[in-house]
């Protein structure tokens, strides 16, 4: 029994060390973004020789939003002879196909729909087919619920003038933030994630993440690296690591803001988070060792890359930590108070919000000029328990994929937009 208790105690200390590591990392990020020197992006470069672009919009049953994204893209400021818009109808059985054909008829040289009715459904497979059809040097991807503003394509495309850049990522801003309590919390999470986290990584030349939408990459490079694996549910995370392992960088464009629709219902959010965790876990198992061994990344890129790669493991580590401490409690071993361990235990609790800690989110909202929204920060504690459970589920699913060598299927995020978007 003594050995069991010792193992349980060691695990608690390990949890605390992991949490403390993440807490310090996010504190460093917050200071870098709020007060530190900001790394200049490329949008001030003026160049007539912009790359040719293929804008891919994967769509599966997107009749509620398809028109909005297309209308916005038809109004963007980018040389028309260098732009192709390819909406990908991925096995839709609603009116998506009709809508895309309608736009193709109306704008035959600009909207070039791709209808996928065979093969595996899902974003990675759709993007592979889209890349094969496209001719542009650079692929920019938007999810169907996004509302790209006029200047965004140029802002992102110009970064590819730098030969080191393999992918670019813009900022995601919820357009339905005021809809309900959940959307407000998600808006706060996005603020912490983009305004602070991504920009700080860009500043510090670490590993900004290509997020799969409002972002882009070099088309031929992605094809040469094997395209997207249809079994990986987070093709964006995989591309990020593939690029870094091949000596390319991902850059973040904080000014390239694009509006999206965040889930308005908890079950939908649950499925989304679970899918992200599932896919991220698949990528973690595939790229953990190659990342460690790579000679193309700096030491800090590796550290940040590993912490990013294992971020979805943290909730299950914490969940096990809670069970561990419950076991210790009933074994009478919680009486560790005569030592420094009380500090350590309390510190673990204090790091509960490490997914995007409270100070990071509040600082991000502060930079955004938000006022009343900041008052919602304490309510993120509910989100923490929610994430804890569904991310842990996704992590287990990703692990089971590895153990049983099973495939995974794509779960689409339902849309809520029953109102007219301002197109």
């Amino acid at each position, binding site marked *: 029994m003594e050995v069991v208790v010792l193992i349980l105690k060691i695990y608690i200390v390990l949890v605390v060390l992991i949490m403390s590591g993440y807490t310090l990392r996010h504190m460093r990020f917050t200071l870098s973004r709020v007060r530190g020197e900001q790394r200049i992006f490329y949008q001030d470069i003026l160049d007539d020789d912009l790359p040719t672009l293929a804008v891919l919009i994967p769509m599966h049953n997107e009749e509620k939003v398809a028109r909005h994204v297309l209308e916005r893209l038809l109004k963007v400021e980018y040389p028309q002879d260098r732009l192709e818009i390819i909406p990908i109808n991925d096995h839709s059985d609603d009116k998506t196909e009709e809508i895309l054909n309608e736009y193709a008829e109306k704008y035959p040289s600009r909207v070039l729909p791709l209808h996928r009715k065979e093969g595996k459904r899902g974003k990675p497979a759709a993007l592979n087919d889209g890349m094969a059809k496209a001719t542009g040097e650079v692929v920019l991807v938007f999810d169907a619920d996004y509302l790209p503003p006029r200047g965004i394509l140029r802002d992102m495309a110009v970064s590819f003038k730098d030969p080191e850049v393999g992918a670019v990522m813009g900022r995601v801003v919820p357009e339905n933030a005021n809809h309900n309590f959940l959307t407000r919390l998600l808006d706060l999470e996005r603020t912490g994630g983009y305004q602070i986290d991504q920009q700080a990584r860009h500043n510090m030349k670490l590993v900004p993440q290509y997020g799969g939408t409002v972002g882009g990459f070099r088309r031929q490079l992605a094809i040469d690296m094997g395209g997207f694996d249809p079994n990986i549910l987070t093709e964006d995370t995989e591309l990020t690591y593939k690029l870094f392992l091949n000596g390319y960088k991902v850059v973040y464009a904080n000014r390239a803001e694009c509006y999206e629709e965040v889930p308005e219902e908890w079950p939908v959010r649950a499925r989304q988070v679970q899918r992200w965790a599932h896919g991220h876990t698949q990528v973690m198992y595939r790229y953990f060792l190659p990342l460690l061994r790579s000679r193309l990344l700096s030491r800090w890129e590796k550290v940040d890359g590993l912490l990013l790669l294992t971020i979805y493991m943290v909730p299950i580590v914490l969940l096990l930590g809670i069970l561990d401490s419950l076991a210790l409690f*009933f074994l009478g071993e919680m009486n560790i108070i005569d030592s420094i361990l009380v500090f350590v*235990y309390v510190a673990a609790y*204090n790091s509960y919000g490490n997914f995007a800690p409270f100070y990071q989110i509040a*600082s991000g909202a502060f930079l955004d000029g938000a006022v009343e929204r900041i008052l919602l920060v304490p309510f993120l504690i509910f989100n923490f328990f929610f994430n804890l459970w569904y991310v842990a589920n996704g992590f287990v699913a990703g692990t089971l994929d590895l153990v049983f060598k099973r495939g995974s299927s794509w779960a689409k995020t339902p849309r809520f937009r029953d109102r007219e978007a301002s197109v």
Partner: protein
Amino acid sequence: MLSLGNKKKKPEVVDISKQVIHPHRAYRKLVDVGRRGSFIELLILSVPLMAVMYFLFPYLTYLNCYNAIHLLTPSIPEEFIHLIRDDYLANTVYFMSIPGSYPTMTFSFITALISFLILVIIPNIKIVPKAVGLWVGYLAFVNFVSATFFFFVPNQFPYSIRIFSELYMKTEVSMWFIIPLLLAAALLPIPSRLGAKFGVIISIVLLDVVLGIVRYFVFLYVLHHYSFLFMALMFFAFGPLVDFLYAVVTYSLFMRNISAEIRKDIRQWKWSY
């Protein structure tokens, strides 16, 4: 449409130029105070308060016990209430010991059953937001484990109120040190007077002390009158996590006020480049 006979009106000129152009949120940042400046600010905000708390915590824990004794005396005979003094962090901490009560098997069984039902039902009720349902589920799970333990092996329960009391008080003292440090770090990036930041940290610690006193009495009362069964719930759900929540609530109020105050004050903001 103007008729031909009308004198043409000179169009009114509207000045649409802005008095002040604020930096876009993507480019905003605050004045950099440098690593040394940040470190000094961190020390100024945290160390003096931590030092004061170090000298004060014996009195505060004594005050805590004094209040609990005062409130508990009507329901518990005085001879059963003990004030204990112990060493902690090379100083003295006070806590109490009172008799606790074990749950009956029936009480444990009913509590386990109710907790189990809550655990299964609440997270799956559609009208309850999933996040709230999971939080309630977590509370029910901890209570279910505890009730099951007391149903099967009540004699194996390793704690008395004395031990719980000691654990609670030493955890509280630890929080009084951690909160100033944590909040000082969290407030570092924010442009506000040092005095204001110091004030907010002091108020959080004071709030924690006052609410900690109330909590201590409630915990002892529940453990004495309603059994040890709820000890796990108190520790895991209403322990340090609640201290953390007080801190974040007060911090967000402060941040809200500062944001409202300076968001249009151009002098505070710097362009990224």
